[in-house]
Structures are given as C-alpha cells and as structure tokens.
C-alpha cells in the first residue's frame, strides 16, 4: 500500500510572534513539524509496520529550509521525502491543495496512493481546510479530525470526535484523512533512526499552478488581549459577580 503524508511547518511554542513596522517579524520564529502532522505521520508508519509492502512518502509545500523537518520525518519512519518547491510560498489553502495534488500526480502517476494523511490543521494559520480540499481535488472521500483508525481488507473503520459524541465511519480506499490529537502517541526519534534517515532521499520537485487564490490575507496585526484584572478577595464576591452577570439560569 502506498501512503502519502502531507506535512507543514509551524512556529514552535517558544517562538516569539512579533511585529516590525506592521509586518510579522520572522526573525524570532523557529519552525518545527506541525504537531497534528506528527499524528498523521505516526499513523502512516504504524500502518506500514502492520501491512507488508507499504511505502510511506511525505510531501511538504515549503521553502528549502524545511529539509530539516523532512529529515525528522524520515527518522520517524517515512521512506521517502518530497520537498515541493513553489515560486512563491502559498498561504491560501486552495493553492496549497492544488500544489499537493500536482505533486502527488507527479510522484504516483496513474496509480494514486490508497491513503493520504494530513494533520487536522496547522497550528499557525489554523485553516483546517487543506485535507478536505485535497480530497475533493483528488476525487477521494475525506474525513477530518480522525481519532481512531482501523484497517480491515479494503475497508477503513474510523472514529471522529463531534460535538458531544463520536461518529463511527466506514469507507473504502482511497481516502484522505486528517489526524486529530488522540489518534496515537508519536514515537521518539532514536539515534539509529536518525542515522538511517540520513541515507534516505529527499527529492526536490518543482510544480506550478495557474489558478489564483480563493482568499487573500488583507491585513495582519498584533492581537492585544491584555485586560485589567480586577482582583477579588472572597468567594462570596465571586458568586455575587456571577449573579450580577446573569450566569445563574
């Protein structure tokens, strides 16, 4: 079975999101693999370990600096990495999905992978749109926010969290799935796996698309959320406050 995993980079949790002259200051941002993508990759590698003859390829539409993240992906068990080069780095989910589709076609030709795995969303822009868009573009079913995955023959049994409950879903290959936290516990990179990853290829692929973006980020600014905190001395005062604000129904 061929499994494709789509990865992106996001600022790590220690990165400083600052602004210089009204623009995002990228100098104090350090990028790592999107945490949701780690779940997607881990699931792909688990499937590979279960189903003989499987092959995991990771794709990332990103600048060349993403190589380090791809190395980590290889150390985590991917067999091959493809860095998708674009002339300008797209931020529009539709364009990203188009690039990914082209990259998949370039790598797999006629026989598309049985499974495409993505993270539920990136933690920086939080669009959560690319996986379903890619599903539509590839003409495959898609399920977003998968928390459990089980394969039996040609069928996939999935669970996904919805408000107040869980949906149990059955579908056939091929499919595009996006991973939610809880799907698995990503493994650690071991010394051996990092050593071996250095022997695996990172392929560069340049693709172009003609289409224009669906949405355009017309402004970005710091989000000032500081409030003046009013300190309360007694529990009673707090209850009175709840009552005043109408929190007791």
């Amino acid at each position, binding site marked *: 079975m061929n499994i494709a995993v789509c990865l992106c980079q996001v600022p790590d*949790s220690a990165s400083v*999101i600052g602004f210089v002259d009204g623009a*995002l200051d990228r100098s104090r941002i350090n990028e790592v693999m999107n*945490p*949701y993508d780690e779940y997607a990759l881990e699931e792909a590698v688990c499937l590979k370990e279960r189903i003989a003859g499987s092959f995991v390829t990771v794709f990332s539409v990103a600048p060349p600096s993403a190589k380090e993240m791809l190395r980590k992906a290889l150390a985590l068990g991917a067999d091959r990495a493809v860095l998708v080069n674009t002339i300008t780095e797209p931020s529009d*989910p*539709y364009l990203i*999905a188009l690039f990914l589709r082209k990259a998949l076609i370039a790598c797999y030709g006629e026989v598309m992978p049985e499974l495409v795995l993505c993270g539920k969303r990136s*933690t*920086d822009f*939080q669009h959560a*749109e*690319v996986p*379903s*868009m890619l599903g*539509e573009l590839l003409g*495959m*079913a*898609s*399920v*977003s*926010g998968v*928390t459990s995955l089980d394969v039996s023959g040609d069928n996939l049994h999935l669970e996904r*969290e*919805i*408000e*107040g*409950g*869980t*949906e*149990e*879903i*059955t*579908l*056939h290959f091929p499919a595009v799935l996006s991973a*939610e936290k809880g799907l698995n516990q990503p493994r650690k990179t071991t010394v051996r796996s990092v050593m071996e990853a250095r022997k695996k290829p990172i392929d560069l692929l340049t693709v172009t698309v003609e289409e224009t973006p*669906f*949405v*355009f*980020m*017309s*402004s*970005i*600014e*710091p*989000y000032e*959320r500081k*409030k003046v*905190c*009013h*300190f*309360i001395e007694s*529990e009673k005062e*707090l*209850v009175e*406050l*709840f009552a005043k*604000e109408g*929190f*007791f129904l």
Partner: protein
Amino acid sequence: MNKYLVFLEQREGALKKSSINIWNRVQEIAASEPGSTVTGLIAGPANILENASLFAGEGVVYHATGEDLRVYHQQYYASLLVELMQENYSALFFADSSLSRDLAPRLSVDLQASLLTGELHTDKNGIPDGCVRPLYSGQAKALFAPQRHVRIYNLSPLRGRVAGFSCESHIQVLPIRLPQTGIDLLLSEVRRIVFRENSLDIAEARIIVSGGRGMGGREGFNMLEELAALLGGAVGASRFAVDEGWRSHREQVGQTGKTVAPELYIACGLSGAPQHLAGIVSAGIVVAVNSDPHAPIFQVADYGFVGDVHLVLPKLIDAVKEFLKKN
C-alpha cells in the same frame, strides 16, 4: 442585492442554536440591504416548530427530510448543497462545527467559492466582506478577504443567547428532496454516532470551568465537575492535564485542543501559556484562580482570585450552593 443561503444544522432532529444564531445575524445584514433575501436549508428530519419562535426575519427554509440525511454523510450533504447553490446564491453561511469543517472545504473547491472562517467582517454598509481570525496562538489576528464571487462563510459561534430580533417572523418551510444524480458510489458512510451521556461539549458550553497543572491530579477535577454542574457548564482542561491523562482530549482548550467561546470561562490552577490562551480568545468574561499572582492568565482575565485552588474551590462551591438555595 444579495441572495444568502444559511445551512441550519440539525443533530438528532433538533436544530442547533448556533445555526439559528447565524440565521438571525444574516437576517440583520439582509435587513440593511434592500432586496436581499435569506434562505435556509435543513438536511435531515427535524422538528422545526420547536424552535420556530427563535427565527427572526422572513424567508424560505428548504427542508430535505430524507432519512438518508438524518446523520451527516459527506457526499449526500455536498450534493444537496451544490444542487441548491445553482440558484445563484452569493454566499452560503455555516455555524462552525465538526460538520461544517468537514464539508465546507469540499464545497469551496466544487463551487469554486472563497471559504472564509472566523468572525464575520463587514464593510461600511454592513455587507460581509471577509472574516477576521486569530492566528499564531492568538498573538496576531488577520483579515481574510474573498477573491471569488461566491463565498462560503464558516462562522465562529456568536456569544450570547439565541433570540429573534423581531417577534414578527415569516418563515415558509418548503420540503425538497435529495438529488439522486451523481451519487452512485458511496465514498464514506457514518455507521452510527455514539453520544456521551449527559455531557455538554465545551465547544458549545455557555460556561466552562477549566483546570490545569495546579489541580494536582485526576481527583482535583472532581471539584471542577461539581462547580460546572452547579453552574450548568462543562469542564475544560489544559494541555498539561490532558497529557498527564487526567482528562480526555475532547476537553482540551487551546492550540492543540478546542477553541471555545463561552460567556464565562473560569480558569483554575492553570498558568495561561500562549497555547492555552489561543483557545479562549472568543471567551466572554474570564475568571482566573491561581496561587501565583504573576501567572500570565491574570493578564487576560477580567477577574482574578489569588489563592490555592484546593482551598478556594471548596469555598466557592459552598458559596454557590448557598446562593442557589436562597434564590
């Protein structure tokens, strides 16, 4: 002049209040735009009368009553909406939910429509022209503008209670059928939905009582359960509490958890890492209880209580009980 379509989500036959909120919001927009119309769509059997009084304004609500649509099927729902959108709607509105997040991106591609997620942004005439959304753990916010004529808005929950803004509403319900074309191969099928017993989802809760590292362990959350039950709210948790296995991931608030918009958020024994604060940008009143007066949570809190949660919460619970008994 715009034609707006609002998707009214039902679950178990009941219309979601968040959807009705969006309907009413769109009615407000249409009211300031002469000639504009608002149309609704309900997929699946639902009891509309139950909530009819909550609807504001006037318009047609299409009701596709087929049993096939009772639970969410990506493909059925998509073809229903794609078919309906052929009637030249300029915008389709969703209330953000696990359903809309699964469906809207596919529709966006199929309809070649701009998909906008977040809080609705309007131009000086009150006409929708994009969405504002926090990015980077809520440390920045950005305005996204559509680049296509047709738009799909997936709107974050509007805080506050559902209420029609005029008592005179004229809703006409018209039944429609699921189009049978183009659905020969069923790609995915929801076998069943397992609902958790009497659990309010934090994404929909009015009040959330949330706990972090300071709760000290699984048992500490019992106090939060009790307080939440008294207030009619849900229990939330920080990433630490979830990673420690104290609480389930579905309760996690923040960057790798849920974004919530309660009217009241009570943060207990959690320091307020940026990743957690990212999840509560849309919360109304924030109350923080923490023993460290320098904890960052106090910077985004309206009310603060400096003290050990293990001492403060039992007293708070007692005070709430006493209040409820009296009133």
